[in-house]
């Protein structure tokens, strides 16, 4: 299967197999008016199987979303068909408006203009908690 190289854009590589689709949706890539490729279960020497996302447009991507969904994924920035930067994304300390608190007693459940803020509470367990009510984020 061939997917064309991109000229100006990003490649999110080394995504854990099965996480690509979640990442695609959380990054809102379905709304991008440019070529976007989501490749799943691609053979990988390092991971066995991996997912890859290619966006052929110079768009702004929230790296915190990538770090939250799949810390360890890499982001390659492409300009004029050249790799100009390679980033390894770590888990962010804070997530803003990426996920929503599911606690019906949380203030965010009735005041919907509030930012949805989650803080990393346990790095080893990849656990985030709502800033307001400290409810644990639902597992992705």
């Amino acid at each position, binding site marked *: 299967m061939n997917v064309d190289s991109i000229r100006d854009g990003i490649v999110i590589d080394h995504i854990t197999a099965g996480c690509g689709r979640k990442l695609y949706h959380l990054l809102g890539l379905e709304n991008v008016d440019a070529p976007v490729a989501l490749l799943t279960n691609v053979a990988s020497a390092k991971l066995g199987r991996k997912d890859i996302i290619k966006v052929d447009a110079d768009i702004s991507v929230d790296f915190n979303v990538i770090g939250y969904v799949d810390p360890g994924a890499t982001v390659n920035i492409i300009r004029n068909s050249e790799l100009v930067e390679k980033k390894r994304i770590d888990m962010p300390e804070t997530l803003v408006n990426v996920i929503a608190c599911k*606690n019906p*007693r*949380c*203030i*965010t*459940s*009735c*005041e919907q*203009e*509030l930012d949805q803020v989650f803080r990393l*509470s346990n790095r080893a367990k990849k656990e985030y908690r*709502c*800033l*307001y*009510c*400290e*409810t*644990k984020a639902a597992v992705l």
Partner: protein
Amino acid sequence: MRSVIDVPDLSLEELSGLMDTAEDIIAHPGDYSERCHGKKLATLFFEPSTRTRLSFEAAMYELGGNVLSVTGAGTSSAAKGESVADTAKTVSCYADIIAMRHPKEGAALVAARNASVPVINAGDGGHCHPTQTLADLLTIRRKKGKLDHLTVGLCGDLKFGRTVHSLISAMSRYEGLRFVLISPEELKVPSYVKDESLKRKNIPYTQTTDLEQVIGDLDILYMTRVQRERFFNEEDYLRLKDSYILTPEKMRKARPDLCVMHPLPRVNEISVAVDDDPRACYFKQVLNGKYMRMALILMLLKEAGRL
């Protein structure tokens, strides 16, 4: 602007300082009777609470200050759909300090982030109630002379009881503590509370369903009410509400220097016959709450440059 949303917002030194101030207020009330002259406390209570609101208001009056009071969401601008943020900004124009209770968890934090005066969380749903914990700490320190090297029993609703979670979190900062967690299976301390406050700090604890079996080991027995409003389901409430009742018979097995505490109001979980036992400290706890609120109001107004 410094606010207090939860007990960990206060360092151990600040907690100790607040307790010292409270003790000084108890010893020399006259020295404090005009400290807040001309200052206003706004008590915004969007959820029913008699004792906490009265305690805050009594605290401010005893400091010589005044009180602006809002009780019940139905009588306030919240009924018109005003956000907590807007309420906090508005009330900041009238008051020097705000004490807020709200049924939604995290509401006090939203208020604190938007107010231009200090905000004290007077309870945000089932989340935090820091001034209750301040009352608890002062009660233990006054009764035991220390906050370390104690065996603390917590009994009743340990799942939804925010006072219990706050007390565990606050006490876990002191040395040599041991916890005995007494509850029905359905109302055990949530694992995240145990993980964060006990396991992470290697604090020993045991869990049991039998109060009588362990009461003789305890320095502190903290009783809690099984609260109707914390249940989604009335049947669960009715089934569990009478699980643990402290009676004079059970007290006979307890140490002579046990300190029995309760955040109140009680329903029937402590028999009225226990009230005359010198080990019953729950009404002293109420009084201590007022003194700690006085100390906290003083501290926050001073830090805000309003005293």
